[in-house]
C-alpha cells in the first residue's frame, strides 16, 4: 500500500492530484456512466448501431452551426452550446431519416443505416473542408470534436456533463419499468397501453444527448464505442436487467477512468482513443472471465458437468459388475454392495475410457468417500457410495424402460440415448417415471436391466 501511496503522491503536475486531470477524470467518468446506462437498453432493443448513425450524423450539424454563427458574426463560431445544439439536431434528424428510409421499398434496414450514416458524414466532411478555407477557420477545434478533446475539459464542461449524467440517471430510474418492458416485449407493452412510440423517442433522445455530449471527451467517432462496448461486456456478467445496467455503467466509468489516467501519464496518445481501448480491454476480460457467459466460465461449467456424468457412469459400471457377481436373490442392497470387492481392472475393461480419465474419476470417488481401498488391494463401495450407486442405476434403468416402452426407441439405441438424458432428470420427473412403472408391478428398487449382463465379463451384451 505504501508503494501505491508514493505512486499517487509522486504524480505531480500530471498526476491524480492535478486539478485539470481531476476535472477531465470527473467529466469522462460521468459520461462513461451515462453512456453505459443508455447503451444497456440499446443493446436489449437490438439497436446498438443507432449510436453510430447519431455520432456520424452529428458532424454536418456541428459544421453547419459553426458556419452559421461564423457567417453571422465572425469569431463566434466556436460557441459551444450552439455547436452542441447543431450537432444534436442533425443527429436526431438522421435517426428519424433512417426510419423513413427503412420504409422505402427495396432498401433494407442495414442499407438504410449505412446510407444515412455515410451520406450525412459525407455532407459533414464537405462542410468541414469548406470551413478549412475560412480565414478564421480554426477548424482544428472542430476536428477535436471528432477525435475528442477530453484533455481540454474545464469546470464548465464538467458541470454540463454532471447535468447530463444526472439527467440520464434520473430519467432511466423514473422510466425503468417502462424501458424494461419495452426492451423485452414491445408487443406486450403496446397491448397494455403504454406509449411505446414515445418511450422509443425518449430513448432515442437519450442516445442523441449522450452522443453529442461525448463529442467533448471521446469525440464523435468513438462515441458509439462507449454506447456499445460496456453494455456488451456487461452481458457476460449477468442475465438480469438491473445488473446489466449497473455493470454497464460501471464498466463505462472504469474504462473512462483508466483511459484518462493513462493518457495523463503518456502524452500524445489521445484520451478518447485510450478510453475506447480500455473499454475493449475490459470487454475482453469480461468475454473470457464473465461469470454468466464468459468463455472460461462456460468451459469450466461444461467440464464440471462432464465430470459429474463420468462419476455417475463409473458408479454404474461398478454396480453392474457387482450385480452380475451377486449370488443372492434379487438385486443387491446397499449393505450387500458394500461387502463385495472389485478390482479396477475389471471395471476399466467394461468402460471404454481413456486411462487418464478413469484414474482421475476413480481418484475423485475416493476423495468423495464413495469408495475405499481395502487391505487386499481391492476396491469396495462405502455405504454412502453404495446408496449413491443404487440411485444412479435406478435412474438409468427407469429411463431406459421409458424409452423402450413409451418412446418406442429401438433396443439397440437405448443405452446410448439413456446415457445422455438420464443425468438431467429431476426428482419430480423421477417420481413420475416410478409412478408409470409401479403400475406394471415391478416393485424392486432397481429394475432389471434389459441388457443381458455377462457374469464373467461384466460387460453388457
Amino acid at each position, binding site marked *: 500500500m505504501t508503494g501505491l501511496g508514493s505512486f499517487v503522491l509522486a504524480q505531480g503536475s500530471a498526476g491524480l492530484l492535478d486539478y485539470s486531470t481531476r476535472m477531465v477524470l470527473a467529466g469522462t467518468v460521468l459520461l462513461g456512466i451515462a453512456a453505459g446506462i443508455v447503451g444497456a437498453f440499446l*443493446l436489449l432493443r*437490438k439497436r*446498438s*448501431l443507432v449510436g*453510430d448513425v447519431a455520432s*456520424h450524423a452529428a458532424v454536418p450539424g456541428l459544421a453547419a452551426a459553426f458556419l452559421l454563427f461564423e457567417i453571422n458574426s465572425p469569431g463566434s463560431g466556436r460557441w459551444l452550446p450552439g455547436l452542441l445544439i447543431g450537432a444534436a439536431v442533425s443527429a436526431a434528424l438522421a435517426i428519424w431519416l433512417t426510419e423513413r428510409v427503412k420504409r*422505402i*421499398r*427495396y*432498401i*433494407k*434496414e*442495414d*442499407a438504410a*443505416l*449505412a*446510407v444515412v*450514416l*455515410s*451520406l450525412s*458524414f*459525407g*455532407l459533414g*466532411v*464537405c462542410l*468541414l*473542408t*469548406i470551413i*478549412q*478555407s*475560412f*480565414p478564421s477557420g480554426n477548424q482544428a477545434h472542430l*476536428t477535436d470534436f*471528432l*477525435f475528442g478533446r477530453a484533455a481540454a475539459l474545464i469546470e464548465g464542461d464538467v458541470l454540463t456533463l454532471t447535468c447530463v449524467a444526472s439527467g440520464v440517471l434520473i430519467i432511466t430510474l423514473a422510466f425503468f419499468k417502462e424501458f424494461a418492458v419495452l426492451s423485452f416485449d414491445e408487443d406486450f407493452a403496446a397491448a397494455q397501453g403504454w406509449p411505446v412510440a414515445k418511450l422509443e423517442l425518449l430513448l432515442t433522445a437519450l442516445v442523441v444527448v449522450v452522443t453529442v455530449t461525448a463529442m467533448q471527451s471521446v469525440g464523435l*467517432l*468513438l462515441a*458509439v*464505442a462507449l454506447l*456499445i*462496448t460496456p*453494455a*456488451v*461486456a456487461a*452481458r*457476460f456478467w449477468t442475465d438480469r436487467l438491473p445488473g446489466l445496467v449497473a455493470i454497464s455503467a460501471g464498466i463505462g466509468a472504469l474504462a473512462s477512468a483508466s483511459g484518462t489516467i493513462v493518457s495523463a501519464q503518456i502524452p*500524445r*496518445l*489521445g484520451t*478518447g*482513443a*485510450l478510453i*475506447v*481501448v480500455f*473499454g*475493449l480491454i475490459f*470487454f475482453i476480460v469480461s*468475454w473470457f472471465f464473465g461469470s454468466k*457467459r464468459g*468463455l472460461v466460465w462456460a468451459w469450466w461449467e461444461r467440464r464440471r458437468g462432464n465430470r459429474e456424468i463420468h462419476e455417475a457412469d463409473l458408479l454404474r459400471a461398478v454396480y453392474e459388475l457387482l450385480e452380475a457377481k451377486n449370488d443372492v436373490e434379487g438385486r443387491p442392497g446397499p449393505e450387500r454392495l458394500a461387502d463385495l470387492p472389485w478390482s479396477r481392472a475389471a471395471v476399466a475393461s467394461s468402460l471404454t475410457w481413456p486411462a487418464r480419465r478413469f484414474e482421475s474419476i476413480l481418484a475423485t470417488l475416493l476423495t468423495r468417500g464413495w469408495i475405499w481401498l481395502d487391505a487386499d488391494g481391492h476396491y469396495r463401495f462405502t455405504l454412502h457410495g453404495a446408496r449413491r450407486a443404487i440411485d444412479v442405476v435406478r435412474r438409468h434403468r427407469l429411463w431406459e424402460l421409458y424409452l423402450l416402452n413409451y418412446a418406442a426407441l429401438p433396443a439397440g439405441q437405448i443405452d446410448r440415448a439413456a446415457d445422455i438424458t438420464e443425468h438431467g432428470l429431476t426428482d419430480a420427473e423421477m417420481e413420475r417415471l416410478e409412478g408409470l412403472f409401479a403400475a406394471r408391478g415391478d416393485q424392486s428398487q432397481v429394475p432389471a436391466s434389459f441388457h443381458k449382463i455377462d457374469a464373467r465379463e461384466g460387460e453388457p451384451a
Partner: protein
Amino acid sequence: MNELLTSLLDANSLDSRIALTAILASIACALPGTLLVLRRQSLLGDALGHALLPGIVLGYLATNFLIDDSPGGAAAAWVPSLRITAMLVGAAVAGILCAVLATIIEKSGRVEPSAALGVVFTGLFAIGLILVRRYADDVDIDASCVLYGHLETVVFETWPGTTLPVAAVSALAAIVFNAALLIAFYKELKLSTFDPEFARAVGIPAGAIEIGLVAATAMTVVATFESVGSILVLAALVVPAVTARLLVNRFISQIMISLVFATLAAVGGHLLAMAVPHLVVLTSDNRPLEVGTAGAISLVSGLMLLATVAFGPTNGLVWKVWRLRALRQRVFREDVLGILFRLAERGVQVDEACLSGQVARSLDRSPAAVQRGVRKLQSAGLVEQIMGIWRLTAVGTQRATEIVRSHRLWETYLARNLGWTDEASHRVAERFEHHTSGYVRENLADELSHPGHDPQGREIPPNTGTS
C-alpha cells in the same frame, strides 16, 4: 465549365489524374458493395472501414521500417507499391479476423450481430487512431486522411516511370481482382446471396464464400483508402448499389448499374469539387471555398440516390404522390357525378347555390373545391350548365349510372349475404363503387339475380352496356 471539361480530358493534367483515380476507386468499391447490400451486410462495410485502420498504419510503418525511403535511395520509387501490397495482405487477414471475432462474440454472448461487430470495429479503430497520432511523423497519414482520404495530393505519387498515380493502379488492381472473383464464382455468389439454404443444400460452401467476400471487401477498402478514406469508403461501397437496387431487379443488371452510378458519382464529385471554388467566393479576403473530392463524391452519390428515390420509374415517391393525387381527384369527381345523379332522381334542380350548399355539405368539401371539380367535369364533357342549372350530359349520365348501380348492388350484396345494416353497407359501398369495373358489376348483379331495388327501396339503375 468548358475549361473544366477540357482540363478533365487532357491526359496529362492533374484533373484527369484525379478524376481517373476517383472513377477507378468508386468502381472498385461498388463491386463488393453490391454484394454486401444484397446480402444485407452493409454494416460489414462500415465495420471494415473502421477496423482496417490499424492494419493500414502498421503496413505503412512496416514498409518504412523495411525500406530506406530517403530521396536518394534506389528503392524509394517502389515504396508506395510495396506498401500497398503489404497492406493488401494485412487487410485481408485483418478483415477476416474482424468478421470471425464478431461472429464468435455474437454466438458466445448471445448478443445481436451488429453489437458484436460494433465492439470489434470501434476497438480496432481506436487502436488505429492511437497509432496514427503516435506515428504521425513517420507515416503519411493524418487525421483528415483517415476521415476522407487525400485524393487531391495522392495523385502525385505515381507508378515509377509513368504518370499513373499509384492509387489509381491499386484501384485498378482491386477492380480486376474483384471482377475476376465475381466472374469465376458468379453462380455460387448469386445462389448464396439469394437463397442461402438452397446453396448449402446443393453443396456450395457458404462459409467460404462469406469469408471470400469479407477478404475481398477488406482488400478493396485498403486499396482505395488513400482515395476515399476510412469512413467515406462506406458511401462508395453502399450508395451506388442501393441506388441501382431501386431501378433494376436482376443480379447482373444490378451490378452494372451500380458501376454506372459509381462512375457518375466520381465524375460529378470531382467536377463539383473543382467548380465550387469558381462558383462561390466567400469572405472578405476573396478566398475561394474548397470542397474535398471524396466528400463531393459522396454528396453527388447521395443526390443521385435522392433523385432515384423521388423520381424512380415505378417506385419514385414523387410518382406515388402524383398517382395518389390523381386517384383522389377521380374519386371526388365520381362522387360529384353520383350526387348529381341522385339529385336528378329526386327531381332537384342543381343551381350554383345548390352546388355551394347542399352538394358541398354532403361531400364534406368546401364550395370552392366543388366548383373546381364541377368545372373539370364540364371540360371533360360529363356535365353541362344550361340556363344556370347544372345537368349531366349523356356521357355523364352513363358514367353516373354505372357508379350508382355499383353502389346499390354492393349495398344489396352486403345486406343479403352478410346481414349488414344500412349505415355500414353504405359506407363500404361508398368506397367500393369507385373500384368496381363492369365485369365485377355484372357478376355481382348475376349473383344477386338482378335485383330491381336496393335494401332501402331505391331503384337500381340498369346495365348501360359499358364498363
